[in-house]
């Protein structure tokens, strides 16, 4: 294979006229981070509701939450994104549909919504597992001192469950970041899209994707590091001893 390596290309101006190729990749990384952050916040919120709902037995919302998880977990993310972006506006009343389509940054909102709701189903499963891992007596002890069920979740169950699932949550956060690349299919100029644009304009495919890979890697390392920090900050002395 004869390939002309040219790392200098990164500093050359892109034909889009906004700066160097490296700068366009940096712009892409910013969108990637924005989508990842938005989707992750949404995923945590949705996942918390789902995890709690599935842990309360025998009410109508438990089967509802189960249905949500099964649907969102089992449809490919790409399909979900297309459904939100192309199909959903058509199903809305006409004037709403128009308004949605004309939203500035519609791909951004759609990506956050689509990826967030999808990741929410996975976070919900993790949280449910975390809640189930707690001794049954914890809920009893919490309600025995007079806490209501919502208070028991807020002050006793969830603080423990979230601590237990921090490691899997880290990997779900990394998945969220990786999944943002799907947003290029609805026209969002995130990092992968920028790398592809660079390849098409410059024909330097290896440099383009190597640079993108390094940027993804740096981002994920930063997130992993931050989550470790959180883990050690919320660690409870002697908790390991209690596990029966």
């Amino acid at each position, binding site marked *: 294979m004869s390939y002309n390596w040219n790392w200098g290309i990164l500093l050359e101006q892109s034909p889009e006229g906004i700066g160097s190729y490296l700068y366009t990749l940096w712009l892409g990384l910013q969108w990637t981070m924005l989508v990842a952050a938005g989707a992750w916040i949404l995923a945590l919120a949705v996942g918390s509701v789902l995890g709690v709902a599935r842990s309360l037995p025998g009410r109508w919302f438990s089967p509802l939450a189960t249905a949500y998880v099964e649907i969102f977990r089992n449809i490919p993310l790409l399909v979900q994104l297309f459904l939100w972006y192309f199909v959903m506006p058509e199903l809305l009343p006409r004037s709403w549909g128009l308004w949605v389509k004309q939203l500035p940054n519609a791909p951004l909102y759609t990506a956050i919504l689509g990826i967030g709701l999808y990741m929410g189903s996975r976070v919900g499963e993790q949280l449910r597992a975390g809640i189930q891992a707690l*001794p049954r*007596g*914890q809920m*009893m*002890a*919490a*309600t*025995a*001192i*007079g*806490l*209501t069920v919502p*208070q028991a979740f807020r*002050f*006793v169950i969830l*603080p*423990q469950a979230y*601590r237990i699932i921090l490691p899997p949550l880290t990997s779900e956060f990394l998945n969220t970041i990786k999944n943002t690349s799907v947003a290029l299919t609805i026209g969002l100029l995130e990092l992968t899209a920028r790398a592809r644009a660079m390849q098409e304009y410059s024909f330097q495919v290896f440099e383009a994707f190597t640079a993108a890979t390094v940027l993804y890697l740096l981002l994920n390392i930063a997130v992993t590091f931050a989550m470790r920090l959180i883990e050690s900050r919320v660690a*409870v*002395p*002697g*908790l*390991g*001893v*209690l596990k*029966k």
Partner: protein
Amino acid sequence: MIEIDNVSKWYGDFNVLKHCTTSVTKGEVVVVCGPSGSGKSTLIKTVNGLEEFQEGDIRVDGTALKDKSTNLPKLRSRVGMVFQHFELFPHLKITENLCLGQMKVLGRDRETAMKKATALLERVGLEAHAHKFPGQLSGGQQQRVAIARALCMDPIVMLFDEPTSALDPEMVNEVLDVMVELAREGMTMMVVTHEMGFARKVANRVIFMDRGEIVEDATKDDFFGKPRSERAQQFLSKILTH
């Protein structure tokens, strides 16, 4: 104080409690014993509504559990409960364990709650451990904290479900001592335990359960002197021989 009136409970087809009737009056200490699986834990947990039951009714200080208008959390806040496995909240410091219910349920401010918590920790001899986490204490210490946590709520009655059976033998007495003192101060108590020494010392009555039934409900002297039922006699001879 507690009236248990013809209570029956099923898990599916399995009849865990069969027409249980008894009562605990103010200041009384009632010990509940019986073989494993006889329904002791289930019975004591129905008293503060931690377990539901299908038939009969229970009244605590005149409030009927089956009454739809009964505010269960409020009722539970007045009934202290101590569990076999302590069930302290492991993510909270000892003082926070003691303050949580006071602040969130009784609406006490932090200062008042802390004062109460400190006083009760002193009483169970653990003031030096106030700022530790439960996982840093021994089993006996954790159970004393659990008793203090229940007492923080100024309960009108205390329920104990085998409070010493998960402890190493050398820690049993430190917990029993706290309970004996509590009983002598006039606390109304319902205690599931096989510690017959404790029963002899402070119980007013002993209830013997077998297969979901209250087989014997007698004063302490009657129970230890001449248990009427054969099952209770067998049970007693078994646990008293060692």
